[in-house]
């Protein structure tokens, strides 16, 4: 164990976990990374491309190396950063991306082949033969390179979502964020303070800072106590704000039970959408390293991380207790690390500082004007080579802390595409042009010292509150200023490989090669080398790479620029983005009033938009759906069938101008419709193409019910509302959707009247009293209010009967029961389709948005006596002269099938676009005709009755001879309708 005294751990609560099956111990308060280091585990993974041994590099979300798979089976989660995993009892972690044991990875052979695997190698090496790329090269490269593997099983965890509307969202709970929260909380506004860590404090957790003459953590504790006492402040730990979206909306993930072995019914994570009036980004900064030869060995770490492990987790990052640690730095921060290590008795071998005339701030040796030029130790660091102006020598050490300065975490401030600007004094990019309402505080703004962070947090809080009309007077505690000078030192020149991006194995040599191959813009550099494209998004690599490229091109860093920052800030699981709705609950469903009844009958259902509709009702002995559908369609033609048509849209239109309004919505006259009558209507799009069709019933003077197709119910209502509110607000009318309010059953067939007569209360259904296209309110079954419409989609004597939805189920039961002797049969959407094709009625197959009333043979319905939406443009050239017409089609050989979608050609014409004469819109097997039939649009179809044509389906090599017929296969004279 390399654990020493101190730290922010609960040593009374020991935890057991496994890493690659090995049982290890840690404490409450540990991360997986700190616990591994405490157990002397330095080697935790293999690199992406070269399979180089890799260790823990950081102590936070920026970690490029220590990616592990947590848990097992369906709960396995690959590519988890050990540095942010809160340790829990029973945690199970495995290393990834190796073949064979981690210590002896077979794929490490890739490292020997590294000269062949330079930047962009796959663009150059695998060009021939071309066909091999997809089948051989790419799969092989993907197998060799990579991250963890998915379990392949469904995600068993639960997720949920939530919405917050604070006045002020503060992102990051370090000194700046806490100070901002305290200032705003005391001022009484609604505050959300979110931090990705499982503990508030930010860098104060990792430092030995002094605030108000006391340890920094005392101030954190007191501040949190006060914030918890404020009802207007919400503290959210384990919550990563990962993206900034339009209109002040932020995406955040709260890890609710990731830190628990047994979630005990709790969700794993919650996806929060936070709409904040103002926001403060106090996300801190990420330390940068200094590339030098073989700088990727386990044991080489960021200096701030080494300090964090020492101060927060009481761990020395060496394999054995007592091994010394060296520090390589270009700034004062490295010396703070040395001081912290010494505090806990960890031997400091030397601080190698790139600067001249630098002195130690503690009892350790400082080597000034020197750098680290190589390392030794295959699976863990054993020695570093130190080089100064005069000589090189090897220094034995168990770990090396590298301090190259700090990069503010500008990411969220740049999510609206703003580019950060270079601050030459601080040698870093700082935010500029942050999203509206956002201010940046603390280290994220370049104000990295504790004192500056506290002042900055309070300052931006006061500014944000001022914009909200709230005055606040902050009380900023005094903090001891730390020395913070440094120099820009971007990499140690050398011939060996020096890693810049650890996760994607990008070295300084790769950047040089990219420059040499003219991939010099940052965007090209990124894509040629894959720098910054790994799961860590190059948090520890990007700025260093820019600096190296700037050096190569002779430009300045700001001239070189940055790539675009995009959400998410850190990886987010797709499960939580989905909000927990999966499988059957992936989307809402709409069920008809007779759904439960149909289910009990064994109906097969089909999706129709959000609706689930009964497709057909199989009976025992029926082994194929066609048998059921043929039986149902025949029952309608010979007896009576009942079908739930509730899904068709119903729009209640009332008002003194309702008729005028309907005249403008429909292309045919509708305002003249008398009470008690129904009329078929067509609606056009603004461009003159067909939009929707349906019936309009006039129930009383100024009171209509418009029906729409199932698919367009919502959009027609929306369109009518738009017309009412925006186009003709002067008209007096009201629109209410009543689709769900009424259960509507189609009762169709020659026996339909006989059946209905058994349920209506004193209502004359005779042809004279209630003719075709009549409607009436009435009562049925001893007093139930209902609406009856004599309309027909099947071509038979038919009615549609509407009752309050709660009675639909019982009405269906009653009709089937009372109609047994009449052959009453429930039918589904398949039979509905067969019946309407036999009758030549159009549906969405014919009204596609690319067809017209003229094509449907209904051109005369477009009234010239009035204007209506789309009427004028329906008369434009190209539409009015369209000669394609809806026709019926039957196969010349009755044994052949008509295939919907097939295109129509003359029998001797070539089957190409130039000779295309139309297409088949709908097809089915017709029990009435005794063969397959179809509907289709055909050039001059109305003049070609009896002609033979060819339906071609080039996709499947089909070619069928068809005969053109009337689209009305059943009762072309309409006698049955009027029976």
């Amino acid at each position, binding site marked *: 164990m390399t654990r020493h005294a101190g730290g922010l751990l609960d040593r009374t609560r020991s935890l057991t976990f496994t890493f690659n099956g090995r049982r290890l111990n840690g404490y409450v308060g540990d991360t997986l990374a700190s616990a591994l280091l405490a157990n002397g585990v330095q080697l935790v993974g293999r690199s992406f491309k070269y399979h180089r041994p890799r260790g823990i590099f950081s102590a936070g979300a920026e970690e490029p190396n220590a990616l592990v798979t947590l848990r097992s089976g369906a709960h396995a989660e690959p590519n988890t950063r050990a540095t942010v995993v809160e340790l829990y009892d029973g945690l199970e972690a495995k290393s990834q991306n190796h073949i064979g044991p981690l210590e002896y990875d077979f794929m490490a052979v890739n490292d020997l082949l590294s000269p062949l695997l330079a930047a962009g190698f796959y663009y150059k090496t695998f060009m021939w033969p071309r066909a091999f790329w997809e089948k051989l090269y790419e799969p092989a490269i993907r197998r060799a390179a990579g991250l963890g593997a998915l379990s392949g099983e469904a995600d068993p965890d*639960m997720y*949920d*979502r*939530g*919405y*917050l*509307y604070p006045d002020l969202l503060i992102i990051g709970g370090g000194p700046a964020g806490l100070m901002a929260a305290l200032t705003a909380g005391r001022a009484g506004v609604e505050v959300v303070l979110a931090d990705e860590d499982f503990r508030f404090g930010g860098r104060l957790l990792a430092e030995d800072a002094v605030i108000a003459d006391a340890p920094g953590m005392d101030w954190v504790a007191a501040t949190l106590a006060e914030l918890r006492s404020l009802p207007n402040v919400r503290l959210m730990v384990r919550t990563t704000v990962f993206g900034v979206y339009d209109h002040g909306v932020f995406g955040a993930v709260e890890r*609710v039970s990731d830190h628990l072995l047994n979630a*005990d*019914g*709790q*969700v794993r994570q*919650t996806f929060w*959408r936070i*709409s904040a009036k103002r926001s403060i980004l106090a996300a801190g900064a990420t330390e940068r390293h200094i590339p030098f030869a073989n700088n990727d060995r386990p044991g080489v770490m960021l200096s701030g991380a080494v300090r964090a492990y020492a101060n927060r987790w009481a761990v020395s990052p060496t394999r054995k207790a007592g091994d010394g640690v060296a520090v390589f730095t270009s700034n004062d921060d490295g010396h703070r690390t040395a001081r912290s290590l010494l505090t806990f008795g960890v031997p400091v071998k030397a601080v190698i500082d790139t600067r001249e005339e630098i002195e130690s701030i503690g009892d350790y040796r400082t080597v000034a004007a020197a750098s680290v030029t190589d390392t030794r130790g295959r699976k863990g660091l054993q020695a570093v080579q130190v080089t100064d102006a005069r000589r090189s020598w090897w220094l034995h050490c168990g770990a090396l802390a590298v301090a190259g300065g700090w990069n503010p975490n500008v990411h969220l401030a740049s999510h609206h595409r703003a580019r950060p600007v270079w601050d030459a004094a601080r040698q870093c990019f700082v935010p500029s042009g942050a999203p509206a309402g956002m201010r940046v505080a603390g280290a994220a703004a370049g104000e990295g010292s504790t004192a500056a962070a506290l002042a900055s947090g309070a300052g931006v809080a006061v500014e944000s509150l001022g914009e909200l009309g709230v005055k606040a007077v902050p009380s900023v505690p005094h903090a001891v200023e730390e020395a913070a000078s440094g120099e820009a030192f971007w990499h140690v020149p050398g011939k060996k490989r020096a890693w810049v991006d650890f996760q994607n194995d990008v070295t300084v040599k790769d950047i040089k090669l990219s420059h040499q191959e003219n991939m010099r813009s940052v965007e090209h550099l990124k894509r040629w080398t894959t720098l910054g494209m790994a799961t860590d998004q190059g948090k520890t690599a990007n700025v260093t790479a820019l600096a190296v490229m700037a050096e190569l091109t002779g430009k300045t860093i700001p001239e070189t620029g940055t790539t675009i920052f995009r959400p998410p800030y850190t990886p987010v699981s797709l499960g939580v983005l989905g*909000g*927990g*709705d999966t499988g059957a*609950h992936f*989307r*809402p*469903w*709409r*069920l*008809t*009033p007779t*759904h*439960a009844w149909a289910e009990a009958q064994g109906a097969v259902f089909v999706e129709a938009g*959000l*609706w689930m509709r009964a497709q057909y009702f199989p009976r025992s002995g029926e082994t194929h759906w066609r048998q059921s559908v043929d039986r149902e369609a025949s029952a309608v033609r010979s007896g009576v069938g009942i079908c739930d048509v*509730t899904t068709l849209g119903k729009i*209640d239109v*009332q*008002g003194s101008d309702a008729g005028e309004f309907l005249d403008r919505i429909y292309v045919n006259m509708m305002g003249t419709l008398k009470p008690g009558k129904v009329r078929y209507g067509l609606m056009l799009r603004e461009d003159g193409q067909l939009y929707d069709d349906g019936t309009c019933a006039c129930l009383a003077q100024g009171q209509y019910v418009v029906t729409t197709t199932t698919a367009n119910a919502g959009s027609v209502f929306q369109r009518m509302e738009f017309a009412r509110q925006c186009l003709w607000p002067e008209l007096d009318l*009201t629109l*209410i*959707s*009543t*689709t*769900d*309010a*009424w*259960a509507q059953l189609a009762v169709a067939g020659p026996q339909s009247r006989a059946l209905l007569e058994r349920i209506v209360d004193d209502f004359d259904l005779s042809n004279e009293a209630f003719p075709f296209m009549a409607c009436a309110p009435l*009562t*049925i*079954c*001893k*007093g*139930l*209010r209902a609406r009856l419409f004599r309309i027909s989609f099947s071509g038979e004597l038919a009615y549609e009967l509407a*009752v*309050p*939805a*709660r*009675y639909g*189920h*019982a*009405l269906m039961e*009653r009709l089937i029961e009372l109609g047994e002797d009449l052959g009453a049969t429930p039918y589904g959407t398949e039979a509905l389709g067969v019946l309407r094709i036999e009758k030549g009625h159009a549906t969405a197959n014919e009204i596609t948005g690319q067809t017209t009333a003229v094509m449907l043979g209904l051109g005369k319905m477009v009234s010239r006596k009035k204007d209506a939406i789309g009427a004028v443009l329906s008369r434009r050239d190209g539409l009015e002269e369209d000669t394609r017409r809806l026709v019926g089609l039957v196969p010349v050989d009755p044994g052949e099938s008509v295939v919907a979608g097939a295109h129509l050609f003359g029998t001797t014409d070539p089957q190409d676009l130039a000779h295309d004469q139309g297409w088949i819109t709908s097809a089915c097997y017709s029990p009435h005709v005794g063969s397959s039939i179809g509907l289709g649009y055909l050039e001059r179809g109305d003049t070609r009755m009896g002609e033979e044509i060819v339906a071609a389906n080039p996709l499947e090599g089909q070619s069928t001879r068809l005969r053109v017929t009337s689209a009305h296969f059943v009762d072309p004279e309409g006698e049955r309708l009027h029976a």
Partner: protein
Amino acid sequence: MPDLYAITALGKRTAYRAEIGPYALAEMTELALASVVLPPDTQAKPLGLELPGPGGLTWGAGDGLAFWASPGQWMVGRQDAAGGDFAAMVAAAVPEARVTEQTDAWVAFKISANAAEAIENVLERLVNLPRPARGVGTATRTLMHHMSAFCVMRSETEVVFLGMRSQAQSLLHALEAVLHQRRVSR
């Protein structure tokens, strides 16, 4: 009385009711609703109910309720009147109004709890609205789990969600899931 039986929006003969941790979730099958549109500049108090302004709700101790639906339009309801012709009753009470039957257009689920905090925990998971828009005495239409619904806040310990009747199963699932999760949350 008609000799047909009624079913609930969930396809059952009896109303759904469940106790989930500190919550009671109940389907309000007897809630009758009618849409009321008044001519401009007309004042009316259907069934004695004050018609509130945008986002507002009138729902006192009695069975009657009214909430704003759009300019000049309100939803008027009564908790025990679904069996009759409620729209006709409202129309008779306000002859100058346009009244549309809405009882079976909606499914209503009531969530109640002893503590306001428990209801707040649920609302912040379900309703993408700022607190003032979903405070006591408001009825606001919103999108929940891809479904349109009214969030009707009768009191700080009782909220009613009105959703499309045909989506009753999906709405119930969304509510149950949230309540179950709140039941176990620490």
